[in-house]
């Protein structure tokens, strides 16, 4: 179960790869060179398909299939859009790519652009990542100066450029159609689908939109071959996945691991150093917060898409938040409910109103004014939200609430019966990044 750095090339190199010359010395741009010299567009897309790479932003949709949806002939120009709006609670894997290995992302965006016949790509980065945006600004300038972006890349006939676009603080802009709205200079509110972005995305043009980690995986796939990539991991969960782990663990950080090779227990105890003396595992939100929370029964589950789906949760963005038995599941659930209430864009009534009511009911349980019927009321509210909204925010935002009440029901019952949920002492030991 060793770590394997395919996306995190900078860790393999042992230093930040923020200078183009360093990135090239570490094998960078070999993937793009091969794509331009040896592949036509169809062959590039076929390589993505054969790699079985799945989207790393949270939904896990097969990347090659998504690229294949882009129409071959279109009166409008095609675009690549990179979703760098990393805002899912507990998720900080893309931050490290942009900060320490930015060229691998630029190379991936360029390869994707070549495959779909685009002349421009956009990287939409969350406004809070201004530091990372400046690293990317420098990387883009270096790539342009060296002919890795611009007209006739690397001596080929392919021309491509990348625009970095800064968001201004809105979780919802990580939803792909809300991101496109924001990039078009509008309020970042999701669109009704269909049409999907592949058909009518940015400026109503065919648009391939993928997460940072997904796109940064393309260079090694093209360089080493789709079969090589597909041989890592399992049939349905190929390759490696970066897990961000945080919360009550001793060594929070990013760990790139081979799919299926590592269990949750190994991630928590071996990589992240387990817990303080006298503390034990209580709960984990493995795929960011928009998933079903799990308890100790999940510890021996291998970390991959299908194994996590089998136990009723999901890999999501792989932002794994872990809580030990000093924490309060009731207060944690309330905190997440507050997050979704704050981030609801307000377009769909069930989400705008429903997330507010979920928060209020959980707040009164925490404050000692809860009633036993509240647990059923939460269930009814969740039912009235589910499937009645345009995007995944509330549809998945109800998951950590509903699952907490199912899996840890006795904690909520105790808070209602005993007049509230006392605030626990937080872990004040200083974190050491992994």
């Amino acid at each position, binding site marked *: 179960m060793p770590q394997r750095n395919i996306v995190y090339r900078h860790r393999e190199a042992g230093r930040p790869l923020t200078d183009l010359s360093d990135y090239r010395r570490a094998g960078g741009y070999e993937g793009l060179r091969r794509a331009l010299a040896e592949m036509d567009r169809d062959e590039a897309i076929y390589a993505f398909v054969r790699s079985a790479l799945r989207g790393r932003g949270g939904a896990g949709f097969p990347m090659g299939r998504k690229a294949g949806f882009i129409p071959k002939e279109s009166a409008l120009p095609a675009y690549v859009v990179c979703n760098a709006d990393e805002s899912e609670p507990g*998720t900080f894997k893309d931050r490290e790519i942009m900060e320490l290995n930015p060229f691998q992302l630029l190379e991936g965006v360029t390869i994707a652009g070549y495959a779909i016949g685009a002349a421009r790509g956009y990287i939409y980065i969350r406004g809070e990542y201004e530091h990372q945006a400046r690293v990317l600004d420098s990387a883009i300038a270096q790539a342009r100066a060296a002919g890795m972006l611009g007209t006739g890349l690397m001596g080929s006939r392919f021309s491509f450029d990348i625009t970095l676009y800064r968001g201004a603080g809105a*979780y919802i802009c990580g939803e792909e159609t809300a991101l496109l709205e924001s990039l078009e200079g509008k309020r970042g509110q999701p669109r009704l689908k269909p049409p999907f972005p592949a058909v009518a995305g940015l400026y109503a043009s065919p648009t391939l939109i993928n997460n940072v980690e997904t796109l940064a995986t393309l260079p090694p796939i093209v360089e080493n071959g789709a079969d090589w990539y597909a041989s890592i991991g399992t049939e349905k969960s190929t390759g490696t996945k970066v897990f961000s782990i945080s919360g009550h663990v001793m060594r*929070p950080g*990013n760990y790139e691991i081979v799919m299926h090779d590592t269990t949750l227990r190994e991630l928590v105890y071996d990589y992240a150093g387990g817990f303080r003396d006298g503390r034990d595992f209580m709960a984990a939100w493995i795929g960011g917060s928009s998933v079903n929370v799990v308890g100790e029964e999940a510890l021996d589950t291998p970390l991959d898409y299908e194994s996590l789906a089998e136990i009723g949760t999901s890999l999501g963005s792989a932002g794994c938040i872990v809580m030990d038995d000093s924490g309060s599941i009731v207060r944690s659930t309330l905190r997440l409910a507050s997050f979704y209430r704050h981030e609801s864009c307000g377009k769909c009534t069930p989400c705008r109103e429903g997330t507010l009511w979920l928060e209020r009911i959980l707040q009164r349980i925490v404050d000692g004014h809860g009633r036993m019927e509240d647990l059923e009321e939460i269930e009814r509210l969740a039912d009235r939200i589910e499937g009645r909204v345009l995007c995944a925010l509330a549809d998945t935002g109800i998951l950590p609430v509903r699952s907490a009440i199912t899996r840890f029901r006795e904690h909520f019952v105790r808070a209602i019966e005993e007049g509230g949920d006392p605030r626990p002492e937080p872990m004040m030991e200083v974190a050491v990044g*992994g």
Partner: protein
Amino acid sequence: MSPDEIRAHIDPIRHEFAEQRSLILPALKFAQTEKGHLTQEDLAAVAEAVELSTAYVESVASFYDRLYLRPTGARVISVCVTLSCMLRGSDELLGHLCEREGLPHHGGTSEDGALTVQEAQCLGYCDRAPCLQVDAEETRGPVTLEAADELLEELRSAPRPERLWR
């Protein structure tokens, strides 16, 4: 900020977008760097620079957390309060900063106008919890209560940055 200054900022990137409405966010973010928030005059100047109505520009600006339509302190401290940070003491950190600055529990602007303290949702530095961000500087963490005291002193004694990127 004047429409000309905003135009000078966005003109070099105008050709990168099929529709110039996309320039609204870059224009708003830049216009905000002068005062740290956007006045009606700023919104009108942005509207003129991107050739859209002031009402439309305001409707966009009002959507985003990091575009401020009301005055803030000279520097804005955003304390992440989402789950990973909560587990590692973000509520204590926020409470401490507010108490030191004489602010209500969930934040506000100090009497001397030097600092605004506000809650923020996940800043993506969960490995360095509890974390906080000053304006749009690189997020800091883990921030102990002692480090928070030093930060307040640092911000009060530092010269105001030339541009306030938020």
